[in-house]
């Protein structure tokens, strides 16, 4: 089956947008269901995995919009204040598992923007559109997300 070929790649996306593996599996199932019923709308204008990726990201963002995840701004603000004082870059040879674990510890609003920009290659304009925020907010969240993640990686 064509879809199965991309299962690992899609699961990786789900993992990046979810807090834990169970949520990621749920998201994977829902994403494949959505792809299954909408496959007729795929016109071949892009690679199919790109199209599938878009669907998974949209679905994950929709789940977040509907309150599946709670943003803890107070927690972030505290962490960010601390992180600003730890501005030295972290090492480049960190294990992938540690990077992903640190990413998961970020508040959702920064984790999502980091994911969309750094991994899924979306522009700030697209991120702003998808999240319903301004381009400035997208840039700001990306920058703060990097700072936070850097601080977390230095502590690992």
């Amino acid at each position, binding site marked *: 089956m064509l879809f199965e070929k991309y299962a690992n790649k899609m699961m990786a996306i789900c993992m*990046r947008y979810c807090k834990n593996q169970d949520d990621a599996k749920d998201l994977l199932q829902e994403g494949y269901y959505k792809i299954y019923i909408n496959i007729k709308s795929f016109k071949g204008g892009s690679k199919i995995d790109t199209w599938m990726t878009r669907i998974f990201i949209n679905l994950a963002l929709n789940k977040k919009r509907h309150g599946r995840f709670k943003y803890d701004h107070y927690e972030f603000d505290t962490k960010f204040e601390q992180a600003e004082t730890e501005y030295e870059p*972290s090492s*480049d040879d960190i294990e992938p598992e540690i990077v992903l674990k640190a990413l998961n510890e970020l508040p959702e609003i920064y984790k999502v923007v980091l994911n969309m920009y750094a991994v899924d290659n979306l522009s700030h304009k697209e991120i702003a559109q998808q999240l319903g925020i301004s381009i400035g907010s997208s840039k700001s969240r990306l920058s703060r997300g990097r700072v936070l*993640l850097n601080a977390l990686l230095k502590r690992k």
Partner: protein
Amino acid sequence: MDKLQHIDQLLKRASQEPANALVSDSDWLVIEKKLRHRKNRIYAMWFFLALVSVSVGLGLLFHNSQPSNPTAITDAPVNKDQDVQNEEEPSLEQIHKGLNSTETYQTNLPTKNVTKANVPHTHYITPPIENTFDLNELKYDIPPIEKPDGISLNKRGLPIVLNNQELNARLVSDLSLIPLLHNEYTHTEAKNKNNGYWEVGFAFTPSLSSKFLSENNLLSGLINKDYYNFVGNSERVAFSNSYGINLQWHNSSKFYVSSGLFIAQRTEMVDYNYTLTEGPIYNAEKTNIDSYFYRLPSDHEQITYKGSNSYHFIEIPINIGFKTPIPRNFESRIQIGLSYLGLLDASGKKGDYSTLELNDVKDLHLQTQNIATSIKTGLYYNSSRFAVGIEPIFGLSLNSLSDKTTSPIKVKPYNYGINISTNFKLIKK
């Protein structure tokens, strides 16, 4: 902060199919299973209900077609030319066994199928068993009744008193008395077998409605790439209903025909929330979207609309039904047929297939003449004067509600719900 851009590279490397993101075969099997399950869940439920109802109906039909209790019927051969009056009477001992002097008689009048081909026309009563009646309770304005020799059934399954022709004449002419002597169901059946009858009443069908979407091959190039994500998937199942006058003709067989006049409302919930940042660029013939242009930020359009779109139809069905009696005055009925649906009006808003902009539903090109099919099956409580039924129903439009010459999407609404009918019987006496 630019020197932190190496974080992006770290993330990208780490995200290349990490070890904990591998989907095992068993996980994949679960996904495949759920895909199939979710797709078919609704249809399976209704198919199951229909299957159960049909099975019960066929089971009862088979059960009822079995010979009735042979011990209550004589083994004499059938002679259709033989008149009741001329039939050879059994001995008094056979007739009066159990008859006492209080003029209260006990009979074992068969409650059904007394006129089966393999059953003699006259069934002499072998008391005492089920039904009890008192002749003194009959409000007959006739001279005192001579003590009858016994009770029998005539060719139509109606009771006669063996040695009293005057009483017999009243029994036959005044059918309203029969229920006192005879099982009500047999009475109704006996009349219906001769006359047929109408049922007229009110029917109400609360239901849920949704729709099947498919693409119109000729115009599918006009569907916006974001149509399904933004519009198609934002339209949901909603409550619908129909109500009106129900009319049924029941003839002497187990089949019946029904029609009526109904007002039907189909609805859909919509929850649009998207931003138009692109617009379609069509080919010269306007039969295909070649590409998309980016709107200037100042031209971005936020589409936010939450509500229900509703469509009102006048519905005239023509159905054929099949009924099976069930003990205690119940019937199972199954009905299938076609309906004419004339669109009366439509209201609400809908995202355009190509531009994704909001349009008034009433401005869309909708088919005003539609044909739908439906199947319903369920239980009726069936008395001599009225019938009350409750039936799960599934209805499906056979044609697309959207105009096939202009719409790239075919929309076939369907609904599933519970039909509740209350019918009064109009029986010719």
